[in-house]
């Protein structure tokens, strides 16, 4: 399963039922840098239903990154995502197709959830096992359960889509190992090809000394 990072620092987080999952902003037609909150409302027309690909100049994307060139309106960029809602247009460049699918999936779930009446409030991110191993309920409770985190969305994916599950203990190790690597070598070369790999990690450190 690909990790989905719906990231874009210039976007404001969406409040409400979505929690922190979806971030997007509004691009006014004149390219102003206003950002507004977005709510996905109404019915989801299914995959690719209400989404079109439409090149629109996007200047407010990021204050850090250089602004993208104006694309030729006659070309449709394959990784451009446009969301129409409530009279506004929301455009993202450079989103890989699988992320688009994820966003669609999340939107579907949000709509499904907004229809149901539930006791649970906003989505509470559950810490992954590596990040936080505190139990999710008090240590003196026996049968107490946390806020339900399930959405009975009928799941019609092909069974073969199931990725091989990872063992918790190994997953934690791999994340800790990565932390160690990042701490020791925060700014590695952009592409570490096989032939470029030095003989051992010691020489990596020689090239990138820790200040």
């Amino acid at each position, binding site marked *: 399963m690909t*990790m*989905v*990072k719906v*990231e874009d620092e210039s976007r404001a987080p969406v409040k409400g039922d979505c*929690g922190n*999952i979806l971030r997007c902003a509004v691009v006014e037609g004149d390219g102003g840098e206003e950002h507004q909150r977005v709510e996905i409302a109404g019915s989801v027309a299914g995959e690719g239903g209400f989404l079109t690909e439409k090149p629109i100049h996007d200047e407010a994307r990021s204050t850090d990154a250089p602004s993208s060139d104006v694309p030729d309106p006659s070309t449709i960029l394959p990784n451009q995502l446009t969301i129409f809602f409530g009279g506004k247009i929301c455009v993202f460049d450079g989103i890989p197709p699988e992320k688009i699918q*994820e966003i669609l*999936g*999340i939107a579907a*779930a949000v709509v499904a959830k907004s229809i149901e009446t539930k006791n649970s409030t906003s*989505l509470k*991110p*559950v*810490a*992954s*096992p590596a*990040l936080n*191993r*505190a*139990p999710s*309920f008090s*240590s*003196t*409770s*026996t*049968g107490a*359960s946390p806020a*339900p*985190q*399930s*959405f*009975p*969305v*009928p799941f019609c*994916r092909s*069974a*073969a889509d*199931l990725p*091989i*599950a*990872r*063992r*918790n*203990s*190994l997953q*934690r*190790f791999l*994340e800790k*190992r*990565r932390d*160690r*690597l990042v701490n020791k070598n925060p700014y590695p070369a952009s592409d570490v090809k*096989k*032939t470029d*790999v030095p*003989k*051992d*990690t*010691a020489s990596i*450190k020689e090239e990138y000394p820790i200040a």
Partner: protein
Amino acid sequence: MEDPDAKKPRSPLGNVDDVISIVMPYVTDAKDRESASLVNRAWLRADSETRDHVTMALCYASSPDRLSRRFPNLRSIKIKGKPRAAMFNLIPENWGGFVTPWVNEIALSLGMIRSVHFRRMIVSDLDLDVLARARLDELEVLKLDRCLGFSTDGLLSVVKHCRKIKTLLMEDSSILEKNGDWLHELALHNTSLEVLNFYLTELTKISPRDLAAIAKNCHRSLVSVKISDIEILELARFFQAAVNLEEFLGGTLDEDHETPEKYMKLKFPPKLSSLGLSYLGANEMQIVFPFAAQIRKLDLLYVLLVTNDHCKLIQKCPNLEVLETRNVIGDKGLEVCAKYCKKLKRLRIERVADGDEMDDERRFADEDGNEDLGGLVTQRGLKALAHGCRELEYMAVYVSDITNEALRTIGAYLKNLRDFRLVLLDQDERITEVADFPLDKGVRSLLMGCEKLRRFALYLRPGGLTNVGLSYIGKYSPNVRWMLLGKVGETDEGLMEFSRGRCPKQLQKLEMRGCRFSERAIAAAVMELPSLRYLWVQGYGVSMTGEDLRVMSRPYWNIELIQARRVPEVNEMGDVREVKHPAHILAYYSLAGHRTDCPPTVRVLKEL
């Protein structure tokens, strides 16, 4: 001397029933006991009163009071809760498996309990306190194995009340850490400790001085210590004091460019034969060379070694019997194993993760340049193992490629294999050959050849095993008790062929994942398998209601559904993403009726 008033003739040896009560304690095998208890009421009583240990494979299969009524003099108990899939983050954390009713029963009725082992269960501090106060100094063994829900306060209570504890294990448990008082308390008062294990926990408030004190006080008995990530340089005094230590796993090393020799002066206990040092790197590897020849068990799951490092280390361990590592060992490393480790009995090769994590592994990649099969285990390595390590009894491997020939070779040579598990990873870009699919014939050969096989797992890719291949598994697994089938078969027909006629008659526990069978087919197959008492399925043809599963409705058979979920998870970058978890079926025999402690995500399929 015969009693002249006896109404019935007596043999010179006395009543058979008297004899059996003396003989029964010597019958230790659980299956034998089971058979003996069915003979008549006297034999049942003899078994009940003298049964020493019970393992409950699923806590919901019976009730605590039934257990204590049947076996009032139990000394040792092992209870398992969550499905095995919980170790892979597939089961809701609050699914169930609460130890509370069991602990309460122990406190109330099981006054002889000395050893308690909870596996994949939910344990609270209160539970630990109740248990500790009930058993006090008589509790010798406590294993909280992959449990969650308790804190170091609970541990402190155990250590305070159970002063003669010999084994304290909490491996891979999720513990709320408040302080290190529990360890300090052990250091102050315990002199009988044999096994201390908090491996794979995130406990950090561990004082090396306390560890050293424990080693000193318990130096006669302490044989196995497995710890969390504590710098091993701080354990010098501990190692010095633990003169009888045979097993040490965990700790952490921190390669420091300033002082590359800092680990060289570390002295290990003289009898150390089982070892695993987390984050061990190539430079430090040599610290184990002096005693490599006596190493019988090696845990390389959490080390920072590349393929060639594995080769260098393993060839120095001719007495190696147990090896656990990741697939970075590669075919090359397995060939070294085959050449040098003739006594190898257990081999487990886990996988490195995909995507970004694979890059980490590659960054450690060896200097062989083009010939980079480091990090991949394929048929080449397995064939070498089959030829070289004939003593293998347990083999669990994640492979990047596999052929029929390799499976055939395993069947031909590894006649001692009791437990075989193969997972075929997703297509790796470095594997250029087309997969040798289907693996039907190879699987058949393996099953026919490994006659002692009791546990079998096969997790492939679509196309890896046809319906015919699945029927082979059914026909040629007469002794298999547990099976995991992943992405095998093609249609419901395959499952029918697997379960009908000559089917795995001894199959007690079946797990299936990612196989495209319908609920109806699954239920029908269950009805055909005579010994099946536990079923777990994920990734199947889910219907809206699950009604087709009623095909397997029968008395004492609980059917539960874990609903499809979208679980928001935070990854290490701080991003929130939703992970999809498809529905599960869990079905099992129970004398205790339906569960009454289900969380919202678990739905019991009740009788109509």
